């Protein structure tokens, strides 16, 4: 009598425990039919106990593991427990519910197998957190896990399809041209040309002939017709970088083209129709330029139908790791190396850097590291000297203006190129991809002192 009472209490306690836990638990007999189903199992699967009991477990559980990788099947075949098998089930709303499963054999007091027991945990919250941590937004070549970039990337397909003029604003090196190319590639114009021009790099007269082209005889040496970039980009996208640098006179000319969708080549007498999508970019704040009168308001409204502002890298620090990985993969492919990653010390040093040159600077830094390393992880010694500055120095530089920071970087990059090329100015200029006279001008304007040796001087033989 006492034993019966004790058994009743034990069974009741077990039931209470199973009912109160948040993990789903069900048992099956040797025919794979469900024999018990706790409350959490009801909640997770959305199936009532009454409906579940007596059914084949796969009809209730309908998991991605059922058919090929059933943990219970393995448990019953091998007579041992399996823990933490991950998968998902699909409920009657067709929703996937990520789960983690543990299974073990169910035996009677004599060790005879009665079936199996499976506990499963709803892993939705963990998966959601994992998704948020690993989340990255990607469109074409633009990758990010920063909330600052989320809106831009999310709205990119609609913006691309809209065919409206787009103004991209952002500091130098933030990826304005990359974004413009992405807009073009995602638009219906993607099979037509994408033509880019840096308006700040050319004087007005040259910019005009570059954009609109000219007729033979328009000016001295114009011996034959030359189509402009508008003609070359016909049907496609014309990207006008540094639009904030164009003169007021040229602003008027451009406005007319945008309004009338036609232009006249230099020396021409007839207007040519144009079907080109205009995407503009500037590292200056065009709103401020409009306010101070240096940029025409009517042109601003023409180009500013959709405005996208790219945040600087210092405002999307969470992207640095992602971008470093991306550039390592990129340069491995490009240079046929097998760099595996970056050491934690080197990563810390990078994270402390203010990146006035933004993503372009980070890319150059990884490229620099590739010169010093063939395989393994990138170390602190592989980073450019400008990255070796301590955190205090970095803090000082954080408070600098963008102009001063850019100067710091320029000095660092030029000095590094000179050292690398034994102070041979011509070789350093080639290394930097600039003309030697540009290098000399930079040396003078940045006040970089050079040693007496110039790289051409051969050392005297003893």
């Amino acid at each position, binding site marked *: 009598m006492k034993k019966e009472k004790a058994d009743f209490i034990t069974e009741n306690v077990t039931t209470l425990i199973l009912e109160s836990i948040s993990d789903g638990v069900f048992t099956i007999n040797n025919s794979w039919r469900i024999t018990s189903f706790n409350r959490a199992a009801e909640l997770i699967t959305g199936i009532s106990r009454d409906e579940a009991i007596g059914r084949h477990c796969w009809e*209730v559980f309908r998991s991605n593991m*059922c058919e090929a990788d059933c943990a219970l099947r393995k448990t019953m075949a091998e007579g041992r427990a399996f823990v933490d098998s991950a998968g998902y089930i699909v409920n009657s709303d067709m929703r996937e519910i990520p789960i983690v499963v543990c299974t073990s054999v169910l035996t009677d007091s004599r060790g005879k197998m009665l079936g199996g027991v499976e506990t499963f945990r709803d892993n939705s919250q963990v998966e959601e957190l994992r998704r948020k941590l690993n989340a990255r937004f990607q469109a074409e070549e633009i990758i990010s896990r920063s909330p600052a970039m989320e809106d831009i990337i999310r709205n990119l397909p609609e913006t691309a399809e809209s065919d409206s003029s787009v103004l991209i604003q952002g500091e130098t090196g933030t990826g304005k041209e990359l974004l413009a190319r992405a807009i073009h590639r995602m638009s219906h114009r993607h099979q037509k040309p994408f033509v880019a021009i840096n308006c700040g790099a050319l004087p007005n007269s040259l910019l005009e002939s570059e954009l609109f082209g000219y007729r033979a005889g328009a000016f001295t040496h114009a011996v034959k017709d030359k189509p402009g970039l508008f003609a070359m980009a016909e049907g496609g996208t014309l990207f006008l970088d540094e639009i904030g640098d164009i003169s007021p006179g040229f602003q008027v000319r451009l406005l007319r083209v945008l309004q009338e969708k036609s232009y006249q080549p230099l020396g021409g007498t007839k207007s040519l129709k144009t079907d080109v999508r205009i995407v503009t970019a500037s590292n200056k704040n065009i709103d401020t330029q409009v306010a101070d009168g240096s940029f025409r308001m009517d042109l601003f409204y023409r180009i500013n139908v959709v405005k996208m502002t790219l945040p600087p890298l210092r405002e999307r620090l969470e992207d640095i790791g992602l971008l470093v990985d991306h550039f390592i993969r990129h340069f491995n492919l490009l240079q046929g190396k097998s760099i595996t990653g970056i050491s934690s010390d080197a990563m810390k040093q990078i994270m402390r850097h203010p990146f006035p040159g933004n993503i372009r600077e980070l890319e150059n830094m990884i490229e620099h590291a590739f010169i010093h390393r063939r395989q393994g992880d990138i170390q602190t010694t592989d980073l450019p000297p400008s990255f070796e500055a301590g955190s205090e120095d970095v803090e000082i530089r954080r408070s600098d203006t963008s102009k001063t920071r850019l100067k710091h970087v320029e000095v660092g990059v030029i000095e590094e190129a000179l050292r690398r090329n034994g102070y041979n100015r011509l070789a350093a200029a080639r290394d930097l991809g600039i003309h030697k006279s540009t290098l000399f001008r930079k040396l003078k304007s940045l006040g970089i002192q050079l040693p007496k040796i110039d790289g051409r001087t051969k050392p005297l033989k003893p």
Partner: protein
Amino acid sequence: MKLAITVWEDRISPLCDTARSLLIAEVDRKGVREEGRITIEADTPAARVSKLMSHGVDILICGAITESLSVLMKRHAIQVIPFVKGSVNSVLDAFSRQKLKNSEFQMPGCGSGRKRHFRRRLGNRRGRSQNLFNL
């Protein structure tokens, strides 16, 4: 009209998204004629849909299915009859007799009105303990 059924051994596969075998049948006035079984090696929903399309499938009978795959099927004009259970022969027979909606072919929790009823009942039962074991 072509009919496809996701099969696992001699029964309907529990989950369409991971089913590895497909029965193809021709449906006409004379009834349903089994044409054969094919293996699905496709990993992605798009590859699964394209496999079905390559066999000219109009109707798919399956067990559970994720919303993303179901939407993709519908987008490609494949009618999906989901949450079906039972042996392949009985399901084919029920389909030809238009009896697939019978509860014996419905996966648990998927019949009409069952879910609402379950939720209401679950709410009323909160806090009570019941004997779980039926061994």
